[in-house]
């Protein structure tokens, strides 16, 4: 679904998830080196790393599939 000739809503979603994924994954990796003072329960599973990666992959996928100008 495109907004007429412009940007698809799916692209907006992809872009936002990409940004979030990068930030959360980045912090997850950083927290390996510098663990938080009060770690949450199950911190040892490093949810930030894999959830951030999931967001990043989904976000990049959507962004690429619905790049502005590309026919979907």
């Amino acid at each position, binding site marked *: 679904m495109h*907004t007429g000739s412009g940007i698809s*809503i799916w692209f*907006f*979603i992809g872009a936002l998830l990409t940004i979030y994924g990068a930030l*959360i994954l980045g912090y997850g990796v950083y927290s390996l080196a510098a663990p938080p003072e009060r770690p949450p329960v*199950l911190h040892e599973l490093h949810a930030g790393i894999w*959830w951030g990666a999931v967001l990043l992959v989904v976000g990049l996928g959507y962004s690429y599939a619905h790049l502005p100008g590309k026919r979907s």
Partner: protein
Amino acid sequence: MTHLIALSPLDLAIIAIYFAFVLYIGYYLKGRATTGDDFFLAGREMTAWIAGLSFLSANLGSLELMGWAAAAYQYGILAVHWYWIGAIPAMLFLGIVMMPFYYISKTHSVPGYLQLRFGEPSRALSAVTFAFMTVLMSGINMYSMALVMKVVLGWDINFSIWVSSITVAIYVALGGLRSAIFNEVLQFFLIWFGAMLVPILGLIEAGGFAGLRERIIANLGSDAYTHAWSTLGSFNGNPMGIHWTGIVFGLGFVISFGYWTTDFLVVQRVLAAKDLRSAKLAPIIGAAFKMMVPFIVILPGLLGLAVLPFHLTGEAEAIATGGHSYNEVLPLMLARYCGPGLMGLGITALIAGFMSGMAGNVSAFATVWTYDIYRALMRKDASDAHYVAMGRWCTILGVLVSIGTAYLVMQFQSIMDYVQALFSFFIAPLFGTVILGMLWKRATPAGGFWGLLSGTLGSIAMWAWVKADPSAIGYIAFSEHAKDMAENMYRGLWSWIICVGVTVGVSYCTRPQPEAALTGLVYGCTHIPGEEQTPLHHRPAFWAVAVSVVFVILNLIFW
């Protein structure tokens, strides 16, 4: 005052980026909201997926998320009925049976359909009550969200109310329904990605669903909290004090069908679909995801029962003892599992939920006010541009009235109970009027109007009767021990019966309408395009059956 969660700069950045995105989408779509159809119906060009996801998103307000997580903590898995039997049959019925009439009639709103079918008086009655109730409900949701933000994050109530509602006002006023819908789809993704980690990590901690069940039994000494149906044989056998007949007929039939098929807040999203097939498919897509929402709402509540090291209580007790209330269970679970970044995402999910619900309210209010009240009763022949300008202004006005309501509720909290009761007055009778209008040719304009009015007045009278004499609940809900929820359901059922009875009676006493006047509005007078040429996997009915099968399996699994 101490608060539950301290946000890191990363969390704040995630929330700020979200605000920037929704505002940009509104600004970006501004140029595409120039005609009435663009502004109020999003140009009728939405795909089934976009209409379906926004249909669900408009319903997934933050109260919906936090309130039902709280209900799951309080009543156990019974809360799941509000997502399954209390939603799925009605959503499928809307898609398969009712949507063709809404869509083919080319109406822009539910009161608009009543005008086509039953004339101006029915429209005026439903439009005025809907507009009034929508802004009031919106204000109550706003206050409730701001209160949670204060408790959880320590944010100032005024700050939460003004920042979030002004943002919604800006993006809806700029881009109209298209902007509301696009943002709702974005918010849908954020709600899922922000909230899904809690049940995933919670199930890991509890040792899967079996472990969760064992922990709850160990903590509460009862397995009634993890069974959806097997405890409903008597009023006393389950934490909600409810009988299965109340769930099936009161919730599953009247309340649920009333809400999902006639509340314009949700129906408006589907009216924006690009063709009839998409309009039929959209509620079915919505139903498929609605069925999964308990994973991010009910499960965290149950996990709270299983893993939290302290017990949550009602709001009053929590304030008195300095403990936490049921309403905080979802933020508490977020705080339990989410570190910096993920916490920001979780809070963004809650804010997104609030904003999608509010955008739903104000865009529906703007349409009903402009088309069904202003154009119908005040200024019939202005230009299209004039009505679009009116739509923009009353989006802002709707938000301001909601803010006013939020402050009113802050002063007089009992208003909240009254308004929620008020909302229930209109929904059940409206369903009676609309369903008879669509399926029964003999229903006349007088029958429709008097049925709707008497059903609504009957509901108000029953409510007032119980307020004046609490023992009257024994007559209305068949049990003097019935709780508020049971009272609402039975009152809904009675008011629906009154509405249908009066509509049928008055219709038989008045002259029937000629069939030509009913074309495109009523079953038997409307040509609904067949789907013989459509491949099976593109047919709405096929997917409705698939959703029904999953619905039955889920109920059996959690029986």
